[in-house]
């Protein structure tokens, strides 16, 4: 079946199988920042934004995104907030093997953009809650969380 959706700002048409996941469809379209890790919605390496919300692309049927906006890391490379997040992760030593990192960054990006659901500050606990769906086997999460806190702290400082 044919689906049309907005991928990273560009109108995109794809021929997909009815049971194909968004992850499979994106990788088949050479959107390689979206990684396969578990295909059970647990590891978050395939996290993308679907209409602004972080989703596991392995847990979304591709057919469903017809008419939606899908944003992957490729679409955020020029985004100021994403660049700040990337820079802090890199400088804090949060990138080891890096396989989980694009997905993890998408989750952090959504968190910082939207703020916590209850309002209030993005503190360490909020960050850790936002990242439970992004498994990282290398870092123990210490440095990714530190990096995220640094981004949030820098945003709070009045210019």
């Amino acid at each position, binding site marked *: 079946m044919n689906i049309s959706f907005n991928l990273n700002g560009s109108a995109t048409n794809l021929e997909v199988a*009815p*049971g194909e*996941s968004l992850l499979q469809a994106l990788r088949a379209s050479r959107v390689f920042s979206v990684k396969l890790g578990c295909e059970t919605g647990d590891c*978050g390496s395939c996290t993308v934004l679907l209409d602004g919300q*972080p989703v*596991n692309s392995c847990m*979304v049927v591709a057919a469903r995104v017809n008419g939606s906006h899908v944003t992957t890391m490729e679409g955020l490379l020029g985004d100021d907030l994403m660049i700040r997040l990337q820079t802090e992760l890199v400088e804090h030593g949060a990138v080891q093997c890096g396989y989980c990192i694009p997905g993890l960054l998408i989750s952090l990006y959504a968190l910082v953009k939207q703020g916590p659901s209850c309002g209030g500050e993005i503190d360490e606990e909020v960050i850790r809650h936002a990242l*439970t769906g992004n498994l990282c086997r290398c870092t123990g999460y210490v440095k990714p969380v530190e990096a995220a806190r640094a981004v949030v702290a820098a945003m709070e400082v009045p210019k």
Partner: protein
Amino acid sequence: MWNLQEYRIASSPAEAVALMRKGPGKGAYIAGGTDMLLEHPACDFVVDVNNAGIGDIARTPGGDLFLGAAATLQGLVDNNFVREFAGGAISKSASQCGNRPVRSTATVGGNLCNALPSADMAPVLLALDATCYIADEDCQESLPLTDFFVGPRMTVLEDRLLVGVALPGECAGWRCAAHKLTRTAEDISLVQVAVSLGMDDGKIQEARIALGAVSPVPMRAVLAETMLAGQEITAVTPDVLRDVATIAAGECDPLDDHRASAEYRRDMVNVLTRRLITRILTDDGDNMEGGAA
């Protein structure tokens, strides 16, 4: 890959049911699709109900809270009506389903219709007297959520569509707390207990104790509820609490599996029931906790 022949999209509940019945072959409704992509159920087609107008969350003029079946779990976490209802217990339970990306797409209807004994949303909704609304091609039916589950992975639906659940307005002021016992912070529940108490005049007027993952279907511990209902709050001594919790533990029928033994699950029903009632009776506002200790 999930071997599926056709992806149908419905624009109303009636159309969804019609598309389901059209055949040929076996069909299934799909909303968020998280369970479907996990399990790849054998079916020929699916009927997408995301655009069927059943995703809204609303407060009726009578004060009831209506949760559309296609409302996402994150929607339940974020929605102000839900956050205010019964101390936000439903939002808190929703916030413990899966992880953030899963909650963006997984729906309350999907959680209930998949009908796992461990369905995360079932206990809190059972504890708040939820009613299910079910659409057929030309009519709607409602029934208590307690009657919705027929067995593990079985509901009363057959080929009809769950359009939503409603929580009665009188439950909005009940105090409700739930606890999901897990192995790690984000996990399928080993045991879940939700307790809600309607209190007035220093008395427990209404009591609901709902249990998940400890019987073939999510259930209410009716005998334990009966012991509690009508009690003066001051009469609920530690001994009474222990009795109520023991009765609740006796009502469930847990299984041994690789996640936990039946014996452990039963004892945890006991522990959690006691703790939740205690917490509600000594409520300091933040009446929920969950996940691994």
